[in-house]
């Protein structure tokens, strides 16, 4: 699975959104505790509304990292999550954010040049007429092949967009309904037998969100053991709906 193409609500991607937050709050990119931005980042992602899962995954992946950084600062003894990838440390994430900030400034400098319209032009040649000789048919065939590839590619890519689309809102509502009906449910059952990455991330973020809104409790008997999602006693899930 590749990271999705994202350009939603004026943001070019998850790093863009995070940087926007840092800049809006006039925080120093070098010293801000990124985990502290987790709640607000999640709120912004939630505010995006019905975001298709394949586009949301990149935002949610970063959101989950921020939540994790926050959790770590509160509970330094927290064991690593059971996940296949390397955990991203605060410093790694900060470096990426700094580099992304430079990229954004460079892109805007290039954009300014483009808008100024001060470009150069070359000559295609043509004043000198000499009989051409020795054309290379392979070069011609290669040029044709290139044109074909370029001309065909957009169609090909459109066909590749996965049909499956979930939003966090949608998935959160589904989980709330299951928990309200059955009292508890296992994490594995929520994931199903062969979850796609998007589906797993959306489910995970929905759970974090429900947990934060005190709708559910998460129970785990042993490390790496089965996680059970339990309806919080004495709470009416719907009453908490508006959240933060």
């Amino acid at each position, binding site marked *: 699975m590749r990271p999705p193409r994202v350009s939603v609500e004026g943001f070019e991607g998850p790093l863009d959104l995070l940087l926007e937050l840092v800049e809006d709050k006039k925080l120093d990119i070098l010293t801000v505790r990124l985990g502290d931005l987790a709640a607000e980042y999640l709120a912004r992602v939630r505010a995006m509304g019905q975001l298709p899962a394949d586009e949301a995954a990149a935002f949610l992946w970063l959101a989950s990292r921020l939540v994790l950084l926050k959790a770590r600062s509160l509970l330094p003894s927290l064991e690593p999550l059971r996940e296949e990838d390397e955990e991203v440390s605060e410093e790694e994430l900060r470096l990426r954010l700094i580099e992304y900030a430079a990229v954004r400034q460079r892109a805007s400098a290039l954009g300014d040049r483009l808008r100024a319209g001060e470009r150069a032009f070359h*000559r295609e040649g043509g004043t000198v*007429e000499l009989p051409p000789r020795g054309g290379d048919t392979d070069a011609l065939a290669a040029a044709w092949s290139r044109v074909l590839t370029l*001309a065909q590619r957009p169609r090909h890519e459109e066909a590749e967009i996965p049909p499956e689309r979930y939003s966090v809102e949608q998935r959160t509502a589904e989980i709330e309904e299951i928990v309200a009906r059955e009292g508890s449910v296992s994490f594995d059952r929520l994931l199903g037998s062969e979850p796609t990455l998007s589906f797993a991330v959306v489910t995970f973020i929905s759970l974090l969100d429900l947990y934060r809104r005190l709708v559910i409790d998460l129970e785990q008997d042993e490390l790496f053991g089965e996680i059970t999602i339990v309806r919080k006693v004495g709470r009416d899930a719907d009453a908490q709906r508006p959240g933060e």
Partner: protein
Amino acid sequence: MPMRSDLANRVEAVLFVAEKPVPRNELARIAGATSRQLDAALAELGAGYEGSGLRLQHDGDEWQIVTAPEMAPVVAAYLGADRLRLSPASLETLAVVAYRQPITRAEVEAVRGVNCDQTIYTLMSRRLIEERGRKEGPGRPILYGTTWEFLECFGLTSLEQLPTVFGPEGIAPVTVPGGPAGEPA
């Protein structure tokens, strides 16, 4: 170099990119100059080229920049090398025409996705492509095809000898209403 007038520079830039001699009145219109101002700018430009590798030349009212006659040997050494010199853009346009002839300019542009005015002109001026009548339909656009010089130049005895790249069904016919976007290069 002594500072040249902005008008002379504008005229120079236009003549530089032009692939054919530019009529005086067109030059005046594009550069936004009166006939008199244009004369002064052309004189300034011509004088500036003295002692350089370029010359300002005119045939009647049509003006162009050419290489200085003294540079003929080095230019011939460069161009006369026994091979075809085409820019990648021209080569791509030539490939589209060769494989899909007869074809209109708009169709070439639909396939390449960029404006192909200049490259078609270049290929025409080198006799690699030529007009092949007109397509029936709105505007009756010109159809282009390759020439026998094209075959000779690529060492082909017929078009059937063109290297096979994709199957003939490899690409669907492309039609673009309203024409393609401009070419950045």
